[in-house]
């Protein structure tokens, strides 16, 4: 609609006609109070707090439902308005207990703020207050009925936002009450959105309630360590005997790519951090048993053994397995350490998406990938495989919100009747294993329908799917681990045939994409670089010539006795890949982990590490959005993986400066130019830093020192520091700007098959996730959430 101009409290403002008055006021910094209004949810006009005076309208109007029209003159804070709000509060407080000092929401309660502002603490009501005892609806959701002010935010966010519809309003008028879907308990996705959105202390979190006060915590916004979507979670931390304890996770600043959203994992599953089983001391195997040792002793044993094997058997006798949950800096460091210090190309990780195949297909095609934010705004989306509701909760939220708020079209092809079918414009339920045939069909091969069709899916559905997709002017294509190798190529080719299509490959862990971009592959260096030349020049070093072994080849070599040492960082291959754990007892095995996992239990040295919430760095989510990881918690005894790797290198006698560029004297190398500042021998890194207006970092343990190098040498990571440090996500382009090398071992790609309530090793040590699953086992019920 065309812009209109209105006057609010004497200020003129211009906004598109039809904008809600409450939103228009926000633009000029005027906050109209409201309980029931929430951006993005349906309008309710239930709380009557946003009443304002509008000239030529006889009665006060609710700013949350009035669309602005040209020439409107509004007063938001007159005596009449104040009196009206005070009276509304008096009504709201009619049954609300006045015991803020013992309420869990005290200090961050919208009702408390309003009562302070409008002063409605004394009441003319003499009747007794209705009271009901508090109820526990699920392991994570508690409901205190008298505190509820019936704003219905929880009901709407659960139904409209989450598409779960687990909350309802029962009864009528003053005796209305919020009720869960299973009479006295909830059966839902346990996301906790209802708790975060509750303006008062009616819905409280089982994990946090009555533990502390908001002003006693420090609030640190960081990136969730669970799935590959990259939600921002704000962790509340407070002092504790062993460091800084994480007490709660929520979504208070809403500045991340997830906006209002967080799932159960981002909100509650931080609690593995203070699990009793956490290792806080290095362990070294002596006489067949793992015994506590000092860091000095453990690092000396590791460095000595690694050096010994490298010198006597060569680097090829050492294998390295990296992590999908360590930061980009740590992943980059690990592969550099493997190649320069251990002199081996034997490095791999648990692959959950075929990024190399996509990088090969998209090389040089700027704009062929999409970010997580784009999924919320694209006019059309195609999802092939995967079940985002379970495996990528944020992606599912983005898709649902886009369909609901922007009327975007969702096309689905899946072998399972996944929940997102409810938002789909076309849902093609295809035969098991039919993805390859689907891609053939999309490419125009009609005979492929023979192996593709499933009983009950008419052929017309497939035809309609293809026709509609082909007619889309702007499409985002998302696909799961079902599509790999040649299928990725086929899909990319199909995408290239469309007017405009952007791709997202879905990987399972917080930094799966980072591990891939940073080159945790035996045959790929960072940025999907197959040739060693570029990095040999950048690092001014000879790289090992012998081709590396994949994870499968390494375990085989370990069984044969060819692998003499193994370095496993933040990974649990014994649990993930079903092979006889006995094979890993043969080489000298070093494991860096938080817990005594199946792999750590058979190690020779176990080094206790800080988790992602206890260190800083960067993560890249599945879609290539780079975000800052900030240190929140702190635990005495553990060290970040970054520091451990540097210390091992140092003890092996390696010049740490060559690993992490720090200090003013860096690596000298030929700049390859014949004149000017870059001629002859100079420090490439230092020159680059100067050109970027960056200071050299002064510590080898500073991950940012290595991020400087990543930004300089990894294609696709040339990003704006200002944007990154301001806390938003920045797009990286390693898939399109990278060198497009492929990696053998497509068969090693396997989905973790995590659900909403599991999260690999971390999930096993999360009390919140376990209690929810335990609760479900006790009370099995129908598929009400679907």
């Amino acid at each position, binding site marked *: 609609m065309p812009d209109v101009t209105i006057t609010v409290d004497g200020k003129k403002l211009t906004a598109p006609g039809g904008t809600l008055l409450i939103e228009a006021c926000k633009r000029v910094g005027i906050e109209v109070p409201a309980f029931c209004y929430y951006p993005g949810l349906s309008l309710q006009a239930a709380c009557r707090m946003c009443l304002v005076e509008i000239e030529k309208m006889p009665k006060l109007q609710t700013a949350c439902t009035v669309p602005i029209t040209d020439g409107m003159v509004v007063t938001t804070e007159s005596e009449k308005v104040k009196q009206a709000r005070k009276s509304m509060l008096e009504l709201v407080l009619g049954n609300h207990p006045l015991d803020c000092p013992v309420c869990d929401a005290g200090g961050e309660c919208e009702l408390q703020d309003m009562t302070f502002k409008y002063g409605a603490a004394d009441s003319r009501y003499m009747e007794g207050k209705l009271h009901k005892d508090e109820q526990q609806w699920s392991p994570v959701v508690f409901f205190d009925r008298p505190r509820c002010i019936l704003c219905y935010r929880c009901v709407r966010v659960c139904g409209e936002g989450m598409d779960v*519809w*687990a*909350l*309802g*309003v*029962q*009864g*009528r008028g003053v005796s209305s009450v919020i*009720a*869960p*879907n299973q009479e006295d308990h909830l059966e839902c996705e346990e996301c906790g959105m209802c708790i975060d959105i509750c303006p008062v202390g009616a819905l409280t979190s089982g994990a946090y309630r009555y533990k502390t006060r908001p002003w006693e915590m420090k609030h640190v916004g960081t990136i969730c360590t669970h799935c590959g979507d990259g939600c921002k979670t704000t962790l509340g931390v407070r002092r504790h005997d062993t460091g800084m304890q994480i007490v709660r996770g929520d979504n208070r600043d809403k500045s991340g790519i997830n906006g209002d959203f967080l799932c159960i994992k981002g909100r509650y599953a931080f609690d593995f951090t203070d699990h009793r089983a956490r290792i806080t001391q290095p362990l070294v195997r002596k006489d067949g048993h793992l015994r506590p040792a000092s860091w000095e002793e453990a690092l000396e044993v590791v460095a000595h053994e690694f050096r010994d094997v490298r010198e006597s058997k060569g680097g090829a006798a050492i294998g390295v397995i990296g992590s999908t949950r360590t930061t980009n800096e740590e992943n980059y460091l690990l592969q550099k350490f493997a190649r320069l210090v251990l002199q081996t190309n034997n490095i791999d990780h648990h692959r959950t998406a075929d990024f190399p195949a996509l990088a090969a297909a998209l090389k040089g095609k700027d704009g062929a990938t999409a970010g997580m934010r784009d999924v919320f705004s694209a006019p059309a989306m195609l999802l092939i495989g995967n079940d985002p509701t379970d495996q990528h909760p944020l992606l599912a939220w983005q898709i649902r919100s886009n369909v609901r708020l922007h009327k975007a079209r969702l096309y689905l092809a899946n072998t399972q009747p996944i929940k997102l079918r409810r938002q789909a414009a076309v849902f093609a339920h295809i035969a098991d294993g039919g993805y390859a045939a689907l891609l053939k069909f999309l490419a125009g091969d009609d005979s492929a329908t023979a192996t593709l069709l499933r009983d009950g899916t008419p052929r017309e559905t497939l035809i309609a799917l293809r026709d509609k997709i082909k007619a889309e002017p702007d499409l985002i294509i998302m696909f799961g681990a079902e599509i790999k190798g040649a299928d990725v190529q086929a899909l990319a080719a199909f995408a290239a045939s469309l007017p405009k299509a952007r791709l997202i490959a879905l990987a399972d862990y917080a930094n799966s994409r980072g591990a891939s971009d940073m080159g945790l592959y035996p045959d790929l260096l960072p940025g999907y670089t197959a040739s060693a030349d570029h990095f040999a020049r950048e690092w001014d070093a000879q790289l090992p010539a012998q081709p590396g072994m994949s994870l499968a080849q390494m375990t085989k070599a370990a069984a044969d006795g060819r692998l003499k040492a193994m370095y496993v960082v933040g990974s649990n291959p014994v649990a993930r890949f079903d092979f006889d754990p006995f094979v890993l007892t043969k080489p000298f095995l070093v494991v860096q982990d938080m817990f005594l996992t199946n792999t750590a239990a058979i190690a020779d040295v176990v080094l206790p590490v800080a988790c992602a919430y206890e260190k800083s760095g960067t993560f890249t989510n599945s879609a290539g959005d780079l975000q800052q990881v900030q240190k929140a918690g702190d635990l005495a005894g553990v060290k970040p993986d970054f520091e451990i790797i540097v210390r091992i290198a140092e003890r092996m006698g390696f010049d740490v400066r060559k690993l992490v560029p720090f200090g003013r004297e860096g690596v000298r190398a030929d700049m390859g130019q014949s004149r000017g500042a870059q001629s002859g021998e100079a420090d490439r890194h230092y020159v680059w830093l100067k050109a970027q207006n960056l200071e050299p970092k002064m510590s080898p343990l500073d991950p940012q020192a290595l991020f400087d190098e990543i930004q300089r040498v990894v294609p696709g990571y040339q990003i704006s520091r200002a944007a990154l440090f301001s806390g938003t996500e920045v797009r990286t382009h390693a898939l399109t700007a990278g060198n497009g090398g492929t990696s053998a071992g497509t068969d090693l790609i396997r989905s973790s098959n995590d659900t909403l309530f599991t999260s690999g090793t971390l999930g096993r040590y999360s009390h919140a996730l376990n209690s929810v699953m335990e609760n479900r086992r006790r009370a099995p019920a129908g598929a*009400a959430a679907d």
Partner: protein
Amino acid sequence: MPVVSEQLDNFFNEKMKEYPTRRSFLVPMLLYTQDELGYLSPDAISYLAQKTGLPEIEIRNVISYYSMLTMKPRGKFNVQVCTNISCMLRGGEEIFQHCKQQLGIGHKQTTADKVFTLEEVECIGACSWAPAMQVNYDFHENLTPAKVDKILESYEKKAAQ
């Protein structure tokens, strides 16, 4: 298998076509179902949830909103005595007290033989003939305690048939 009769199920399917969305037919369906079953049982709620494509909780929300809908079994005859202003001025309270005494039950209670349920209700739109009461869908007006006795007796006979 539908909880309601096949006839009613068919009627629902036919009538559904006249409504813009399936949920807009919900309240009439609830009334028809309650008339047939006597109350809205958990099975009836799941049946209607399926029919409308709504979650069960949404059906329960609607039922809980309307006082004429119930999730608890009622007696064969639901005696609803109005005690709103007009009826109250003309002795509605006494009529309600009299019913309580005669039937030996209170508000929203059912007799042991499951014949009567008694309810004190808000205005039933019969102010001109106050005091009034409604038994299922039948209205009885200008009541006196003696008249009430006769009315209850007639229903007792009906129940015995």
